[in-house]
């Protein structure tokens, strides 16, 4: 920082887009007179090849160490000019851009004098700011080419296999004694009509013989520290404790069907759940002739106010299998809204109707009542209560989060929602990522999903993970916050205000921000009462300089 | 018969209460005391009730002794440290005051000088201990007194605590007060007799006389105000309705109070009637209650 400041200003005509309103020559003259400015030039199109080479030439000729371009919006053109700076041998962050098109010539066309003055002001502010620009380097961090997959249901196993198929090593941990998750207990999968056990055995066999996958059953996750590319994981398996370094983590911890204790006279014998029905179907151990299924048993109610997505299709699927076994079975499905979204589901619903399954809607304020051998229900189309014979009542209960969701969320420092499903980074565009880099999500742990959806998400999560794994190192531009330890008062402010839980207190008792995790929002910088957090990109000094230059001195 | 004698005799006790006002005018209070003089065993004199600055309890208690009424001198820990408290007690004795009711006192923020420094050097329990110490001829620092008082110390208890924890704590503190020498208890106003009975069942083993509090309900509005603002007082809704429905509020008020007194007769050792300006109604209440 001891070298003399030499700033070059480049002002774009953008054809007549800027030059039609602003006097570019006048702006150049104005810029030339500003402190530290060595040269100011105009270009017809600064973004064109002629413009960028003019910048590079000017840098050489004038020995510039800061570049200011006054043109259009940095949102589209900053990368281009930064690249030009880099090619000219200047750190790309010693560049500042002024938007005199979108923010000036285009919006003050009818007030040319004021627009001219404003453009001058904006250039003055940028030049003042440029004096305080600091070079920002990208830094690299090594990637452990290893993945930890937590959970070995269909989602976890699919992810693990997908990663192994791409040549990456995987550690798969499962808290149960056996791999396979929920599917182990199921009968058949619709619409593929394959036996669940077949599907799961096939995957388990594939995992067992895959050299790239190490699996641990009865394994409990205990501690995770570190950041993307470089997590340290500790888990225990019986009495043994294991530690390993992994680059990424996939959360595939699954969910579990609600046990409907106290609902609809559930007894596990005559009133059972869909999962219990599947076990019976598997054993072909069903004699009932009249069967009533009740949807939303324990779901979409105030204490569990979500739709579990898959239960309607589970019921429809099982109706069809029941019909296969017991041809003259009378089956009623009592539902609130049938969730048969898409092509195949709707087709299956139609098939069930055609097979004679009767669907009766009920309202939450008049739920069915299960009595001895029959079910009382208000029939909305008939407008009265009716009784349905029921040798067997099957409750469609929602998938709920596992009890350990909370503890896993704490260990991984990733959030869960009100229903204890893991919370993704963004509901629409990052459904499989966490806000915390390097940890991904799939299957029922995210939200109830069909086998097909869970598989899809598992492959997707593997793809997200591969982005990190495909590189030996991760590069990160240093536009992040960093603590100047000697100034830190250990007040915990940054820790409390960071939206991403990045800052922590290090072994020296001071706050530390892991640059690989920092998202660069600057909230902590603005809040730190000790002014101990540095933000080289748009630093306090730069903002101060811009403010001081608001008025011409 | 002095209050101490009445207490020791085991008879059903009746106490009343007067609160000195802001200023030096004591005429109407003396008049009120005169009306009930023959119907009560003692009259409590409050100590800057509700943390509002008023004429002192000691002075008015002394005036009552002049009238031949045995006062119960109320003393709170709010405004004086242990020096002042001990000194005032000695002064009170010299002025003929024999009964002391030890209280912690409301917080100054409740009153008209909310920014006064709260003292609370001693609370009700330590105040009682201190009285015991003075009675035994020593001050709190252990110095011998030349001439010792023989106060009859009493305390208060709030039986209407609105939750289990609060009630447990009240009872624990009551035990502590007894340990510290409290010889009788006066309670916060009782309206819900069933609740009070439950309380009595829990504390009857302590074998210390309890004098149940009765506040004359002047209006439904007052009842609602107390429900909202006075800790431990709850006027049941039917009683409020009775007050709203009546045409003759005074008559109704007396009738309700008498009803309560009648029931308290079977539950505790006395009643403490807080008439809040309606002292002249006290005889009617007692008459109707058959006392």
């Amino acid at each position, binding site marked *: 920082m001891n070298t003399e400041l030499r700033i070059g200003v480049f002002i774009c005509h953008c054809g007549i887009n800027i030059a039609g309103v602003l006097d570019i020559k006048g702006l150049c003259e104005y810029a030339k007179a500003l402190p530290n400015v060595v040269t100011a030039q105009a270009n017809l199109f600064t973004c064109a090849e002629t413009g960028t080479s003019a910048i590079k030439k000017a840098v050489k000729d004038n020995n510039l160490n800061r570049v200011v371009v006054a043109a259009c919006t940095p949102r589209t053109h900053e990368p281009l000019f930064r690249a030009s700076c880099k090619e000219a041998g200047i750190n790309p962050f010693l560049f500042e851009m002024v938007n005199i098109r979108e923010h000036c010539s285009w919006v003050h066309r009818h007030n040319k004098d004021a627009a001219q003055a404003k453009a001058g002001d904006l250039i003055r502010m940028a030049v003042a700011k440029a004096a305080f620009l600091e070079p920002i380097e990208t830094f690299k961090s090594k990637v452990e080419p290893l993945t930890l997959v937590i959970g070995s249901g269909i989602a976890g196993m699919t992810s693990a296999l997908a990663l192994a198929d791409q040549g990456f090593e995987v550690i798969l941990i499962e808290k149960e004694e056996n791999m396979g998750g929920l599917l182990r207990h199921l009968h058949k999968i619709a619409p593929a009509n394959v036996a669940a056990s077949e599907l799961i055995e096939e995957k388990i066999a594939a995992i067992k013989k895959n050299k790239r996958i190490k699996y641990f059953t009865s394994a409990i996750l205990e501690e995770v520290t570190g950041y993307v590319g470089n997590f340290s994981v500790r888990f225990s398996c019986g009495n043994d404790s294991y530690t390993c370094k992994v680059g990424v983590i996939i959360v595939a911890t699954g969910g579990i069907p609600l046990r409907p204790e106290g609902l609809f006279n559930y007894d596990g014998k005559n009133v059972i759940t869909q999962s219990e029905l599947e076990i019976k179907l598997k054993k072909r151990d069903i004699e009932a002739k009249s069967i009533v299924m009740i949807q939303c048993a324990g779901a979409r109610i105030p204490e569990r106010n979500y739709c579990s997505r898959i239960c309607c299709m589970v019921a429809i699927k099982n109706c069809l299998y029941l019909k296969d076994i017991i041809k003259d079975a009378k089956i009623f499905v009592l539902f609130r809204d049938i969730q048969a979204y898409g092509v195949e589901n709707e087709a299956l619903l139609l098939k069930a109707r055609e097979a004679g399954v009767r669907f009766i809607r009920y309202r939450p304020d008049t739920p069915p009542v299960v009595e001895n051998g029959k079910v009382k229900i208000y029939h909305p189309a008939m407008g009265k209560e009716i009784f349905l014979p029921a040798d067997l009542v099957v409750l469609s209960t929602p998938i709920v989060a596992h009890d350990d969701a909370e503890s896993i969320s704490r260990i991984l420092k990733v959030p869960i929602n009100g229903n204890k499903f893991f919370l993704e980074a963004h509901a629409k565009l990052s459904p499989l990522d966490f806000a915390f880099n390097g940890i991904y999500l799939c299957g029922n742990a995210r939200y109830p999903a069909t086998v097909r959806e869970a598989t899809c998400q598992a492959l997707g999560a593997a793809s997200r993970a591969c982005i990190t794994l495909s590189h030996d190192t991760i590069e990160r531009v240093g536009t992040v916050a960093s603590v100047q330890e000697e100034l830190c008062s250990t*007040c915990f*402010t940054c820790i409390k205000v960071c939206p991403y839980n990045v800052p922590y207190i290090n072994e020296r008792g001071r706050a530390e921000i892991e640059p690989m995790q920092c998202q660069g929002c600057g909230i902590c910088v603005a809040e730190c*009462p000790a002014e101990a957090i540095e933000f080289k990109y748009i630093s306090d000094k730069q903002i101060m300089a811009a403010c001081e230059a608001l008025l011409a001195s | 018969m002095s209050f101490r004698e009445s207490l020791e005799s085991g008879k059903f006790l009746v106490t009343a209460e007067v609160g000195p006002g802001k200023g030096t005018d004591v005429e109407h209070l003396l008049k009120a005391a005169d009306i009930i003089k023959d119907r009560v065993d003692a009259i409590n004199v409050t100590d800057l009730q509700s943390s509002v600055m008023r004429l002192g309890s000691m002075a008015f208690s002394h005036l009552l002794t002049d009238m031949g009424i045995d006062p119960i001198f109320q003393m709170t820990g709010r405004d004086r440290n242990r020096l002042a408290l001990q000194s005032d007690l000695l002064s009170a004795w010299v002025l003929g005051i024999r009964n002391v009711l030890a209280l912690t006192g409301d917080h100054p923020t*409740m009153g008209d000088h909310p920014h006064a420094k709260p003292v609370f050097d001693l609370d009700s329990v330590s105040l009682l201990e201190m009285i015991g110490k003075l009675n035994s001829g020593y001050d709190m620092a252990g110095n011998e007194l030349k001439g010792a008082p023989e106060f009859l110390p009493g305390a208060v208890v709030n039986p209407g605590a609105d939750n289990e924890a609060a009630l447990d*704590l009240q009872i624990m*503190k009551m035990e502590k007060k007894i340990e510290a020498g409290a010889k009788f208890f006066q309670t916060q106003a009782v309206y819900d007799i069933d609740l009070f009975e439950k309380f009595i069942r829990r504390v009857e083993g302590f074998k210390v006389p309890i004098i149940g509090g009765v506040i004359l309900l002047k209006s439904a509005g007052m009842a609602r105000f107390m429900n909202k603002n006075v800790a431990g007082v709850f006027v049941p809704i039917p009683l409020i309705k009775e007050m709203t429905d009546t045409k003759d509020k005074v008559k109704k008020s007396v009738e309700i109070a008498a009803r309560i007194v009648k029931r308290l007769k079977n539950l505790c050792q006395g009643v403490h009637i807080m008439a809040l300006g309606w002292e002249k109604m006290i005889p009617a209440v007692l008459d109707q209650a058959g006392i």
Partner: protein
Amino acid sequence: MIVGERKPMEELLGMIEDFERILVLGCKGCVTVCCAGGPKEVKTLSTLIRMDRKQKGRKVITIEASTELQCEPESIRPILEKMANQYDVVLSMACGAGVQTVAKLFPDKLVLPALNTNFTGIAEEHGVWTEACLACGDCVLGRTAGICPVTLCAKGLLNGPCGGASEGKCEVSKDQPCAWQEIYHALKRLNRLHYLKQKPQVKDWPVHPGRVVREDLREVETT
């Protein structure tokens, strides 16, 4: 930590009325942690002072500095000595102890407090601090499940609650829980309710002024 908050600007501006060269002196200890008097607040206050003077058309020079710990003489000395002739008055953003340390160390300079020192407290959440300790010199927390009746009971009662609580709240404020009920619940949880039954306590206040001496730590006279 000691918790303070900035005095109202009107009062502060009144205090510095006569001065043109002001050293705004923050402290990087407790008052930084409670966001009242750290380097950032020093900047804010200095800016406000300059803005005020600017609109009044009066000159002012503000110097911004912060000590590591203003209650520690060795932390102040180098900063203040270095700039001794650049300022007329010190506007200290430290707690009362810090202000007094400056006053003691530089008897020839006027030092003004920019903060009101409120209490020794804890950060309940970011932006909320509550009083926790009166520094009474005779800690009873061991008997009260870690809840201080001296501080948290409005009356500082040691022998149980007064009768003023309603619905578990203190008579002084509906937002304030009754400390004794809290203690009760905490002890019950810990299966230590019997702690409440111990002998009545009278609080003996420390003799003024407070002073703690550790002879083993004191400087040895070697002559």
